[in-house]
């Protein structure tokens, strides 16, 4: 576990924050798609477990986490400020799959967008140009980091449930329009379970491969507890922290 200083912990919307830390030690080896777990200083064992977060961006040794406050751990994290110390452990999990076809559709719901930043940062420009990024949220204020994502030469498509930005409705509706027109060859999706369910259905309907970054509660993140399971189509289970968090949609049942 690396003890690191917080460089910045900035509020981007009502519930979404951007944390910046100076990476060191093993953290420097992180690859897109991997995650870290964060332990907050002295909380008297409550919350007991460090929380997992995808690496959102990693440039010039500055590692960024894009997170949403949903419970006591993330609330505690949001209260920390510049200069304070946290413990960060990682990298954990498997990176995004290496062999990936283009044009590639990235589908994000809410803070599910996090990992795609780092993914794009590491992608050569000629391939960035062959990316469609579908990014949906409830309302416009939750579509965060638009300035950052707009800098990549990608096609960015937005949707909000209330219609305050982009298309009104679910992001998967935009995705389906393009799938119909055979614009993309393969999908990589991250977001809430209901969205991932739809992406899985769409990938089956249009016969394309889809990778999903899934979530479960994790105690260890290191393969020690065997608690983070997702049902495997072939029988048995995947351990999300070891074999995931990104898995082929066709291989999982949820």
């Amino acid at each position, binding site marked *: 576990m690396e003890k690191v200083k917080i460089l910045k912990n900035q509020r981007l919307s009502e519930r979404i924050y951007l944390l910046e830390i100076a990476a060191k030690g093993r953290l420097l080896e992180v690859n897109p798609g991997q995650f870290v777990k964060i332990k907050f200083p002295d909380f*008297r*064992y409550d919350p007991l*477990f460090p929380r997992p977060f995808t690496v959102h961006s990693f440039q010039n040794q500055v590692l960024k986490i894009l997170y949403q406050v949903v419970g006591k751990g993330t609330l505690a994290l949001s209260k920390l400020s510049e200069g304070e110390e946290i413990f960060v452990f990682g990298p954990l999990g498997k990176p995004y799959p290496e062999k990936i076809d283009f044009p590639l559709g990235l589908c994000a719901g809410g803070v599910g967008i996090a990992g795609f930043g780092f993914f794009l940062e590491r992608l050569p420009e000629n391939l960035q140009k062959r990316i469609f990024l579908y990014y949906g949220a409830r309302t416009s204020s939750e579509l965060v980091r638009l300035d950052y994502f707009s800098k990549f030469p990608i096609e960015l498509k937005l949707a909000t449930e209330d219609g305050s930005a982009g298309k009104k409705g679910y992001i998967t509706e935009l995705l389906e329009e393009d799938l119909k027109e055979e614009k993309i060859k393969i999908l990589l999706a991250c977001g809430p379970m209901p969205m991932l369910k739809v992406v899985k259905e769409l990938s089956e309907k249009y016969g394309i491969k889809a990778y999903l970054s899934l979530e479960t509660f994790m105690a*260890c993140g*290191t393969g*020690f*507890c*065997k608690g983070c*399971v997702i049902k495997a189509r072939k029988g*048995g289970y995947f351990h999300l922290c070891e074999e995931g968090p990104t898995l082929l949609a066709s291989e999982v049942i949820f």
Partner: protein
Amino acid sequence: MPESPCVIGNYSFRTPFFLASGTWGLGDTLLNYLTPEEIKASIGALITKGLSLEPMPGNPPPRLFETPCGLINSIGLENPGLKAFLEKYYPELKVLEVPIIFNLHGKALEEFYEMAEILSEIGEEAIELNISCPNVKEGGIAFSQNPQVVFELVKGVRAVFKGLLIVKLSPIGPVLEVAKKAEEAGADALTVANTYPALGVISYEPLQIIRGGLSGPAIKPLTLRLVFELSQRVKIPLIASGGIMSGKDALDYLICGAKAFQIGTANLIDPRAPIKIKQEFEELSQKYGRLLDKSSS
């Protein structure tokens, strides 16, 4: 206190800190986080995940539920089975030259005997009988409710296995009677204790309850009491397991009569916990060593 090896039965361990069953996976990822030298220096024994005669797929999700200062787990003894473990995972662990204790789970007495025989035949030297898993339908904690069955079990295993025989108690049920019967039947040591049967309500969609075993700092005072009570009633060594997160926790258990300490949930939080805990323990025992010596004489 000088660094002396930890002696249990006829066996001597380099340190009194053991890795608890089920809290370091099957061992295949351990070396990602600790070097062989660190393992050797800080860990006295590695206690395997609960192994059964046949492979077990484990329970469907959700398997984990965090409580204030605790964890409820319902893994359901997911494991590849004893034979597959010996073939696939064991060779890598053996080269570490740290004693390995096989944690065994049987649905019936005969299954325990069969596994003990397999281990005996290949010259294995240590077993921990898991009669206390709260997360399986057959076997597990059910054994712990009946002291006479425990007697029969331990006697049966003893007959085919000459090595170190540890019985891992459940913290609930007729614990004192079970402990006495295990001792009488020839157990060399007792692990006190497994997790506490508990329940968590997952209050988001879909609403679910999870029944499992509670571990972590939340259970420490309870298990500490058990260790204390048992230390007054049995002569065989006690190995503490329950919420050991720091050197101070281990020292508390030592004061209450434990000879060795298992690190469980703490590993899940930080795989380097054993190093830290051992170090803290040694510093503390140096500080309080004289006090401790006085009180034990």
